[in-house]
Every structure is written in C-alpha cells, then in structure tokens.
C-alpha cells in the first residue's frame, strides 16, 4: 500500500485562509445538542479521553491513582465507559501498565525528548524504545519544530519515519505543537508531513505551550486527514490536546469531527481528547442529565 503513495512537495501544501477557517470552526459551536444526542455525545467523549498526567513531580502513587480513576470514572453512574488511555512519561509506563492490568485501557507514553524535542535522534529513538519495552501501547512523539521553522521538512519527515520504524505496530501519535507553528498554513504543512511519514495520529499540542488545541487548528488538521484519506485510502486519527476541559467544548469538537470526517471517525480508534480535567466535567454533565440538577464538584473524585 505504501508503495502507491506519492510523497508531495510539502512546501506547496494547501493554503488555509485564517478568517474562513475560524468562521467555519465557530459555526460548529452553534449546534445545539439535546437529550439522547447529548448523552451519547458525552459518553463518547468520555470514552475518547487520554487521561493525562505529565508533570515533573509525577510519582508511582499519583499514576496508580490516576489509573484507578481511569477504570472507575464514577461508580455512582453505572454503565459508563472507561477512558481510552492513560498518557504518562516513559518512566511511568511500567507502573501504569501494571495498574491497568487487563482493563483494556491503553497506556500512551510521550517520548522523543517531550515536550521540546530538542535532543539528538539517537536519544529520541532510545527514549521511544524504552517506552515500548516498558509496555507502552501508544507513543506520543513531538516533531522538531526548530527544524520545521528552518524549512528542513525532510529532516522532520525522516525523524517521524525513524520513530515509526521503532514503533512498528505500536500506535504513533505525532505532536505538531501547533502553538509554536504560528500559522494555519504551517499547521497544514506539518500535518501533511506527519501523515506521509507514517503517523497513525496527528496531535495538536503537548499541553505545555499556549495556545494548545483550538477548534480552528483542529479543523485544519481534520481537513488534512480528509484530504489524505481521499488520496491514499488510509484513515489517520486525530488528537486535540490541552485546553479542552469543559464538556460543552468537547461536544463542539465531536460535532466538528462528525461533520468533517463523518461517522466512521466517531470512536476512540480515530479520535482522542488529551485532557486531565475534562472527564470530571463530563461526569458532572451526565449526572445533571440523569438527575436534573447539578451536583457539587466535591462529589466527583480528583485523581
């Protein structure tokens, strides 16, 4: 299959009109989701979360607690799905893997000198190998934004390809760090580079740089995914990360996903939210739908 794909000239990647893309993105927020549609959307969003802790102060204890939360989001509401994955640093992969056991929840590990990516390729490869050996199901790598800004698209491409080679069948998410790219044109270009180089997911942000995920940026990436699909027949997945902490915003993203890529992308194989506090807001909204009243945040566990 790969043999049939022609690598395009990334310097002439499609142009994006800022005003137009922002206007289109805001249009999705005008959709009004009610009743069944809302409840289904909230549950789906919950099931798409990569529950994340990426801090210097992460410990075994913290990660274990987060894993328990992942498996038992809110036991007061029976029949809830679990989150899709736990997202941690490589050093925490072993702990998370053990804590999650056979729950079916995946362990995603950031790698390649996350978050800056400012390290030699050998280090990035070793970082990735370590995470995989520890049992990571998914690798969230960062691209070399410096090289990208220098116009060295081949370098960026080769690096992604090299990491994908290390990953093999392990899912590879490629973080573009859109907040450092500056324009939608560049977001589109980086998306194309990542997909043609072998990314399974393209992901907006590390969560360490503001702005992180926004709807227009995500829209640009979804459109890149759609164009890539029509060109190659290959479905790439999408992960906006950082800054999505409210259920309502998550629903807006799902509306956008549904209207740009259609229903085949509406599952956690093809879409994830990288988030830490989103889950509790969704749980609060689900309880509101069920009981008719909002409950205090104290009723929802913070792990």
């Amino acid at each position, binding site marked *: *299959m790969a043999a*049939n794909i022609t690598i395009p000239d990334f310097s002439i990647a*499609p*142009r*994006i*009109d800022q*005003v*137009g*893309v922002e*206007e*289109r993105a805001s249009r999705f927020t*005008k*959709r*009004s*989701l*009610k*009743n*069944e*549609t*809302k409840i289904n959307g909230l549950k789906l969003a919950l099931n798409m979360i990569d529950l994340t802790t990426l801090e210097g102060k992460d410990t075994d204890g913290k990660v274990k607690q987060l894993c328990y939360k992942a498996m038992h989001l809110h036991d007061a509401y029976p029949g809830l799905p679990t989150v899709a994955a736990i997202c941690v640093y490589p050093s925490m992969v072993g702990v998370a893997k053990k804590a999650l056991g056979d729950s079916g929840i995946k362990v995603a590990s950031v790698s390649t000198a996350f978050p800056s990516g400012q390290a030699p390729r050998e280090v990035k490869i070793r970082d990735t190998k370590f995470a995989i050996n520890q049992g990571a199901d998914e690798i969230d790598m960062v691209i070399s934004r410096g090289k990208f800004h220098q116009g060295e698209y081949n370098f960026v491409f080769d690096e992604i390809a090299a990491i994908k080679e290390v990953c093999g069948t392990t899912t590879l998410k490629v973080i573009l760090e859109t907040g450092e790219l500056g324009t939608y044109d560049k977001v589109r270009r980086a998306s194309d580079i990542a997909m043609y180089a072998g990314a399974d997911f393209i992901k907006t942000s590390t969560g360490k740089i503001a702005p992180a995920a926004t709807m227009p940026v995500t829209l640009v990436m979804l*459109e890149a995914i*759609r164009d890539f*699909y*029509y*060109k*190659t*027949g290959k479905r790439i997945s999408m992960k906006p990360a950082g800054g999505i902490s409210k259920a309502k915003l998550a629903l807006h993203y799902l*509306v956008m996903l*549904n*209207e740009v*890529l*259609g*229903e*085949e992308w*509406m599952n956690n194989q093809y879409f994830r939210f990288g988030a830490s506090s989103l889950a509790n807001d969704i749980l609060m909204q689900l309880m509101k739908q069920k009981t008719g009243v909002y409950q205090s945040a104290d009723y929802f566990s913070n792990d």
Partner: protein
Amino acid sequence: MAKNNTLKLKFDSSRNLAPAPESKSVAKIADRYELFINGKFEKPSSKKYFKTINPATEENLSLIAEANNADVNKAVKAARNAYEKGWKKTAPKERAKYIYRIARIIQERARELAVIETLDGGKPIRESRDFDVPTAANHFFYYAGWADKLEYAFPNRNPQSLGVAGQIIPWNFPLLMAAWKIAPALATGNTVVLKPAETTSLTALKLAEIIQEADLPPGVVNIITGAGATGAAMVNHPDINKIAFTGSTDVGKIIQKAIAGTNKKATLELGGKAANIIFDDAPLDQAVEGVINGIFFNQGHVCCAGSRLFVQESVYKIVLQKLKDRMESLIVGNPLDKNTDIGAINSKQQLEVINKYIKIGQQEGAEIFQSKCTIPTKGFYCRPTIFTNVAQSNRIAQEEIFGPVLSIQTFRTEDEVIEKANNTPFGLSAGVWTDKGSKIFNMTSKLKAGVIWANTYNKFDPTSPFGGYKESGFGREGGLHGLGAYLKV
C-alpha cells in the same frame, strides 16, 4: 488499497441530531393586523384581509390588512403632513435620538423578532437570530450616528431631505430590508410609507409597534400591507418624492416605466446571478465553505447569492468532492430548530419556480446532485441542489432562480472567467477566491458587479454600500452612499 473513487465519507449521523427547537412562546402574534398609519393601527378601507402562513408547516399565522388606493392615499397624506409640520424641521440630533431608540428596542426584542421572522418567512432561526435581527439593529445604530453629520458627509453642499419616501421591500429579509430602507430615510429627514411583501408582513408590523413604543411622531413612518396592487398605488401616487424598491428585475422595470417623466427619485435593488470564482491557488476548504454560504444562505433567497460557481479546471474534481461532502452535512428542516441550516422555501409559488428551474436544468442536459437529507412532508422545502456540466447558454446559468440551486462551470484562464462572469444582464455581486493579492485586484477591477467579495461571501455591514450594475438596479444602500439616495445634494 481502496480505489480513490470508491472512497466516501458518511455523514448521516451528523444530520440526525435530537430536535432542539427554539420556543415559540416569545412570539406574540395577534389574530389580525391593521395598517399602521399616522402612528395608529387602522382598519383598511378595503375591509379586506389576507392570510399569512408559516411556510414550514402551511399553518395560518395571522390575517393581514390589504391596503387599497384610499389607504395608500391616507398613508401618504399622513407622511406628507408629518414631514411638513414637524419632521423636516426637527433638529437632526433629535432625529438621531429616535433612531437610536428604535435600534435599542430592536435589540431588546431581538428574540421575539427572530422567532417571528422564522415563523413567517421560513428562514432558519440561526440566521434570523444571528444575522437578520442584529444587522437590522446595526443599521439603525449606524444611521442614527449620521443624522446630525450630514454636512460632513457632503462637504460644501447643503444636503436637503426629499420629502415622502415610498419604500417597497421583498420577502427574503423582511425586517432587515425594512431597516435598510427606514434608517437612512429618517436620518436624512424624510418621512416614510413602507410596504412589506405580502408573504412576510409580520416583522414589519412588529417594527411598527416598536416605532410606536419609541414615540416617533405620528406619520413619520407609516407601514401599510398588501400585494402588488398596493405597491403599484404607492409607485403611482403623485405626492411621493422617492421610490426605494428591492425586489425582482421584472417589477423594477415596471416601476421605471411608471415613474418615467415624473420628478420621483428612485433606487432599485433588483435581481442577480452572481459569479463565485475559485482559482487553483485558493484556500479550497474555505472557498467551499464560501460557496455553501453563498448559495444556501437563506435557502438561496438572496439577490446577491453566488448562484454561478466558476472553478478553475485543475482543481475542479477536488472542489466538487469537497462541495458534495459539505452538502451532505447540511441539515434541512424545521426552521425553528436551532440546528437547521436550510429552512423552508418562502412560499408555494417560489417552490414551484425553483422546481421548474430544476426540471429545466435536467432537460438542458446538466448533471444534478442533491444531498441525501430527508425533508419534511408538510411545508415547502427544497434539497440543496447543484448542477454540473453547465454552459453559459443554459437557462439555469442565465436566469435568477432565487433558491438553493447552484450552477457550476469550469474555466481555464483569468480572462476567460472575467468574460464569462460579466456575460450576464445582472451585475449585483461576485466572489473571488485566491491566495494571490494581485489577482484579487485585477479581478475586482474588471468584474462588473456592485459588490465583490474576496475570499469570503455574503458579508454585510451597515457601513458598506450595496447595490447593482446593469439590470441589478441602481443607487446604493448602506454606508455614506446610502445617505445620498435620500438627499438633494
């Protein structure tokens, strides 16, 4: 590997959202509406009333008075009287206060106006709420600001009001068109007799209530209702100084003939068949969104709708694919539902016109594509429709359809598309999509259209003049130009 031409995205679930209807309870619609003459609601001397219906359900909404010649005469007399006895001499800054007041009351009653606009006209609540009503308020705000600055608008002149303005407006943007007409007329010191279209009288009558509430002196604005005969009586009334008409080119021509040889000033804003032009270097996804917005906004009932799409051949296939995908995610249905993108066609009569053209297009050999959405069985609806394989000589490329129907043609060079775009009796608007600034300037200086949008479409602002070339009419509304249409300068 899957063959490219078999790949297809699926959008059924994006259209099947749980109903999210806007509440009708804010819309207070009386059983019967009278004529608004001299500050009061008066029974028509015709003693006749006609029904106004909700085109989405075909249910009756109310009865509307039909003004005959005697009523028109009464309204014009009231306007003349108000002009001579007071409004003409009212200090400009006092005029401004009244206009501001109207703007603010429109904002206060925005929700009610939006719901009634949607019920009476069939347009989606998203548009009446986010576009029609706020833009109508903005027009009043904008022209309120001009009222006491006319000598700065026309330096070294002595701008004088005209007298009584007779204004006839269409059914596609009932409240907004009333605002476009009334606001500049008042700001320049004229008095008004306004007639809304017979299928959409309600928001104009609500505006009459607002004008009453704003304490505008009696007779300064008179709103009378009725069909073509009422309009004709206005046009032919000897004591009207100016006719402002927005509507079809056919009626525009009749008005031109009727006022020939009289002293009446006129502005006519008529039909269009706008070219929306996509070059191969354009931001394609945003261009496609602009095409959607250009032709499906307000069910295509827009005189400046981008109803002819020209796509450069090298990107034709990809644009068409994106356009079809986008069409599949459009929600057609109950206009009161907040998720509806395309509401009801304004009237049975208009639906018949649109269907006639869809048939003509097929008979002419053009290829039709309609989105797969389901449409309600009751009410007047039309699926979003595009025609490919269209030539300039096709009727669907020449005549204004005024519905959600797009004709698509391809082109190779700039000169070719300029020639094709200008090859029409109309000249209201056009759109250009390209990443190259110099191309935008070349195109906009050569396209014969009153309004040209670059990398966007259907954008309106009170500060920006709007109007046409050729059979799309003459005179400008909006902005500073819109003042001139109501003044002797």
